[in-house]
């Protein structure tokens, strides 16, 4: 039986963020939603986050830069990225910074759920 995770979903597109959140909740995980990079950093500081699903392109601070900042405080932070198109430089930076993987949007939900599953195992 998989354990309950604290999942942080970060996306400036509310429809995306909230539908994903609901999906994870359906599998009995606790979900925190953030709508930009800055909120993501705050969410990590205030909560114990098991895994994050970050959008790349967002206002204020992009997903990758906020991830780098989070990793500097929480080197164990586990984050997947989701992107609408391949912004190569940012993706490379995320992978080099320790991201677990990248899903292209619209994300393949079976793969996302498999990723969550492996985190919960």
């Amino acid at each position, binding site marked *: 039986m998989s354990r309950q995770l604290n999942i942080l979903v970060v*996306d400036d*597109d509310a*429809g*995306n963020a*909230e*539908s*994903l959140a*609901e*999906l994870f909740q*359906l599998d009995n995980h606790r979900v925190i939603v953030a709508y930009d990079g800055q909120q993501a950093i705050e969410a990590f500081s205030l909560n114990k986050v098991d895994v994050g699903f970050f*959008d790349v*392109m967002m206002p204020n601070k992009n997903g990758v830069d906020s991830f780098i900042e989070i990793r500097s405080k929480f080197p164990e932070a586990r984050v997947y990225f*989701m992107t*609408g*198109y*391949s912004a*190569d430089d940012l993706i490379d930076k995320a992978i080099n910074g320790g991201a677990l993987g990248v899903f*292209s*949007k*619209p*994300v393949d*939900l079976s793969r996302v759920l498999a990723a969550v599953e492996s985190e919960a195992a």
Partner: protein
Amino acid sequence: MQKRLSNPDALLSILDNLPTSIIVKDVDLNFVYSNRAHCQMIDRPEHELLGKSDKDFWPQEQADMFLQNDRSVMLTGEESIVEEQATNSNGTTSVLLTHKTRLESPDGRSYLLCVNSDISALRKRENHYRALTESVPIGIAQVDEDLNVHFANPLFKLFSGGSGSEYEQERVLRKLTEENPAFPGKACKFEAVVQGIGSEPRTMMVISSGWLDLGETRRSATVSLIDVTQMTELQRINAEVSRLNKDLAANMKSLKEAQDELVKRGRMEQLGQLTATVAHELRNPLGAVRTSAYLLQRKTKDTGLGLETLIERINKGVTRCDNIITQLLDFSRNKMLECQPGKLDDWLAGVIEEEARSLPQVLEIELSLGLDGRDVPFDPARLQRAVVNLVSNAAEAMVGTVDQPHANPTSNPRLTISTKVRDGLVCLKVEDNGPGMSEDVVARVREPLFTTKSFGTGLGIPAVEQIAHQHGGKLDIRSVVNQGSSFEIWLPLQTQQETAVA
């Protein structure tokens, strides 16, 4: 035997009818006889002349000269032939060739016989010729068989350099015989560089008349030298100008092409930015739709509401939209490639294996890899898009997709993906045995937005071609209706930078 003519009247008449002027002077050099030609020259009748001397008829200076010559002959008794100038009362000057002889009469007295031939016309012609040879811008010389120069005009002497001596002229001529064996005996015309002693080398047009028979023992030829240095220089400049003109035209052409390319690239860049923005903006809501459909499916499962078909339709719609966005991105993407040398065969096997999962099972897929582990520079992400495009096109043409099977599928559908090296290029071929394309379709299939599919963007093949071009390669398309199509992506074995360095 005929009797010799001795009648004095007859003899005088003969003398009067000669065109030569004949005068006889006494010891004091006064006229004692003048024939008609002489009278005409002075323009006086004979009786006005007799007993008078040259002093009475000619300008003093000329008369003094005549008389001095006369006295010399009278004194020495030696014949003399002199050229004299005489200006008569009309102001007409004649050049006379005067033959002077002292005569001794039986009574012991001496007389002077003067015979004058008017050579004015001859001298005039001579002067004309001289002026001509001196003023023509051509070096002229008369040369005999031993290369002796019989005549050379001033320009020929100048071209010979130094002091223009015969030795220097001969040196130039000898050099020309080395340049052209026909010279000067055969009529010829050629260009040669002539360098007179102490002069700059000059390009000359050399013309020889060939041997002329002038009735002399040695044959001679007229040699002309025309200085064409400036003309040669003009020709060179002319050639240079026309070469520059050609270069300019070529430059203009490539400039125009570069300009067109820039405009095109500018548009492509705009399109790229627009597409990237649109892709991002569309994929976010698409994600929300997909996730929501999934949630809907989960939440209504086992409720008996019968929403499965509707949800499936939503999912297919999302996938199709996503594919369109991918194709748009493939076509409009114009970032620099990131080419790394890699094992193309191994990579391709992986790509095909992954792609095969989403293709209908009925397809027979054959992989024939012939690069023998060779490294090829390529951008894996971009080339994957090209390969996936070609493979999914071929599959769709033969059997349709998993979601939308072809109404009239190809029997025994076979997809062959192969690689080989030929002529220093790598060929990646995707071949099918599907319905093929007509010539018209083949001709248009590279055009953006051209499509034969009901849901095609018409950007697939243009994107593949663009990716091939970005690699410095090309796309070859062959197709036969009812037999199948083949698409060949040709890639260079070296990157363009490497080629440039090599």
